């Protein structure tokens, strides 16, 4: 029965995540925006707390997207929706800090999605980052040049990886490499590389527009030897790339949720400022009969609500084990562009109060930009959606 509402059973989780965001993230938000590359030690306490929460089935972080076994017929609201809801609240606090949460990396999401049971057990409790992008390869992940060559019980990895979120702080990095460059995407595999493996060299940390609390690492791999058992998924060429790409079906709604969180923060603060200054927002009166700022606000909130429902529906499909790549890309596209639009507009509406560093509005407008880029840019999402709607292959519609 059509009812696009978050069930009451998640109210406690949402409330807990919101309080964590308000009490741990917000007070440290500006501090680590200024002190880029400094480890936010406050998060260790929070991470322990969250580990406890997930153990009790409450988890509010960005990991653990392994598909639950659905028991019984009928409609389910489960782990995917829980994660989306928790992520929205945490990113209402601070996106950069969420991305720095120990053991909540995108590599953890990849492991949760494609690892076998042995690997899953081995990496339990580890913090895993994800390394796909290379200096000459961004969105075209099938064109990566980092190589993996089988040598006995090991693979030898060589290449360069950039834009590795939490790369310095993580315990291990999921590295994408090709077994045979002439075989294209079919030969691409992911390997878990422990941070202390010889030859795995941290070149530098990037200085960025936003999410400065999160470190972004550049690695060089020089004859890095990893056990063959560290390869995620099937070692055979011709299988597995699609499975690896399916990780994105799980992580894209989470990045969309991050966009929703930061955008909601900007909307809440702008609403407060507008109301204080005597410009209330009325949902009943036509937008054009209200002050221009209120009309703009209504438009922004409408876009936010659309992004939110698209994201929840992608998570809902995953919870019910239905294919959701289309919805995952749709929500990522809508939420990504909406977060940029909302946070930038809110700075404009708040004027000097929004642009100055005394407010977090200017920070959110910087933080949000990355969310329309990583885990597949806006344009990649549009490509995926367009191919699906038009019935085109990736060779027809490039």
């Amino acid at each position, binding site marked *: *029965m059509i009812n*696009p509402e978050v069930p009451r059973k998640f109210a406690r989780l949402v409330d807990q995540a919101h309080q964590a965001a308000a009490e741990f993230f917000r007070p440290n938000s500006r501090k680590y925006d200024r002190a880029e590359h400094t480890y936010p030690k406050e998060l260790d306490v929070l991470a322990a707390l969250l580990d406890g929460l997930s153990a009790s089935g409450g988890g509010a972080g960005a990991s653990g997207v392994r598909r639950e076994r659905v028991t019984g017929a009928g409609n389910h*609201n489960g782990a995917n*929706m829980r994660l989306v809801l928790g992520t929205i609240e945490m990113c209402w606090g601070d996106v950069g800090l969420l991305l720095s949460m120990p053991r909540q990396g995108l590599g953890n999401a990849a492991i949760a999605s494609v690892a076998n049971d042995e690997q899953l057990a081995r990496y339990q409790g580890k913090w895993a980052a994800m390394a796909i992008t290379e200096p000459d390869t961004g969105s075209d992940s099938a064109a990566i040049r980092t190589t993996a060559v089988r040598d006995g019980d090991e693979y030898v990895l060589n290449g360069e990886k950039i834009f590795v979120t939490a790369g310095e702080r993580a315990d291990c990095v999921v590295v994408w490499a090709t077994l045979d460059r002439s075989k294209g995407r079919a030969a691409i595999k992911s390997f878990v590389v422990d941070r202390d493996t010889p030859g795995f060299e941290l070149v530098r940390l990037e200085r960025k527009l936003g999410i400065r609390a999160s470190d972004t690492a550049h690695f060089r791999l020089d004859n890095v030897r990893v056990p063959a058992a560290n390869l995620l998924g099937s070692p055979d060429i011709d299988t597995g790339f699609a499975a690896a790409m399916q990780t994105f079906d799980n992580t894209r709604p989470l990045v969309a949720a991050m966009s929703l969180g930061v955008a909601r923060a900007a909307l809440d603060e702008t609403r407060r400022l507008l109301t204080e200054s005597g410009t209330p927002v009325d949902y009943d009166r036509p937008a054009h009969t209200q002050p221009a700022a209120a009309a703009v606000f*209504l438009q922004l909130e409408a876009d936010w609500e659309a992004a939110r429902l698209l994201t929840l529906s992608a998570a809902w499909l995953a919870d019910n084990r239905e294919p959701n790549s289309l919805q995952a890309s749709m929500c990522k596209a809508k939420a990504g562009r909406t977060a940029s639009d909302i946070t930038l507009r809110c700075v404009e509406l708040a004027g000097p109060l929004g642009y100055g560093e005394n407010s977090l509005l200017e920070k959110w407008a910087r933080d949000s930009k990355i969310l329309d880029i990583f885990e597949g840019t806006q344009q990649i999402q549009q490509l995926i959606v367009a191919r699906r709607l038009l019935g*085109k292959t990736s060779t027809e519609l490039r």
Partner: protein
Amino acid sequence: MTERGGKRDAMGRALALLNRLARLSALDRLRLREPVRRGVYGATKAGFTAAGAGGRAFTAARRLARPERLPSASSPDLFDLTPTDEQRMIRETVAEFAAERLRPAAADADTACATPADLRSTVAELGVASLGVPEELGGLGTERSAVTNVLVAEAMAHGDMGLAVACLAPSAVSTALVLWGDVTQQATYLPAFVGSDVPVAALAVMEPQVLFDPFSLRAKAYRTTGGFMLDGVKSMVPGATSAELFVIAAELDGRGPALFIVESGTSGIRVEPEPAMGLRAAGMGRVHLDRVCLPLNALMGEGQSDVYAECVRLSRIAWCALAVGTAQAVLDYVIPYVNGRVAFGEPVSHRQGVAFKVADIGIELEGMRLLTYRAAARAERGKTFAREAGLARRLCAEQGMRIGNDGVQLLGGHGFVKEHPVERWYRDLRVIGLAEGAVLV
């Protein structure tokens, strides 16, 4: 059926609908032997009519002890986007009707600024209005069905928005009576809406004003000794010249806007056609109210401000549903077009400039749909929905128009000519940002 002592259950209601449909096909076959009756209302197109259409005498038949309302819908407390079996069946039936009857008639009805009379009777046969009327009053409804109404409006608008408005306008009046009518009002007017001869009726909220605000009306209702006196002008009233019954919004003695039941034959009512950019098939008109005297029990919902606000919100949700259906029609039409149209040696859909527009139509359309469903789902469960209806309206106004605009653009010059329906959808979708009243979920 037995468990509710003779009341219809979901399957029973679905069967009742199918039965109506079966009768409909028989009628259709008969109609094929009749001359085309298109443009019957065309005669009323030019000039003022002397008075409202008038028509049947509405008299209170069997009066119940208290007004009959549909209970709020109930369902498990879970996020869900799956329609019920009953909703799916209704949606399929209406979609078929829209594809077979509305779409083929749309272009001519648009030109004629009139709804073909046979379509109206077909919709009456379908029993669209009955869905929202309680069984105790002869309808098919057992609980509040705003979502079902949204699905119906969406499916109909996929055929044609103008004709959908014409077909749904009477149910706006019957839904208003179910929601806010008192015992006498329900007994007097509702029986007509569950029969096969449903009266043309309209919910008139809009007024010919710049920056029109439904919460600040120029039409006035004054208390008189025997009842009320109405003065003002209502705009964009569907089927105005042939309507037998209106529900009219007017400012009540400075107390705020309220709804009045007005029979179109009442003295002082003058109707003129008001063709517009789009929605032409709905046969819209202006209704002039010049010292129209109404009895005391013409006032609905005791003039309470929350009744009127609820009416405005439910109406906006209905417009959103129409926008979703029309935008879906645009998407369904442009996909085969851009795949088939070749330029520079390959289909134009192989260009990102074209393909990304299609992607964005798909993305924004899905957002429009979800916001509309959410507002309707909250409404039928008796939750607050002012915010959700307001946001759905904003999104559907903005993105619906953008989709209409892109629909024409993607066909290029071919989109600009009437050989393709996209130019009509462009004109129709403009209304979502400004329409109030007329339809209700």
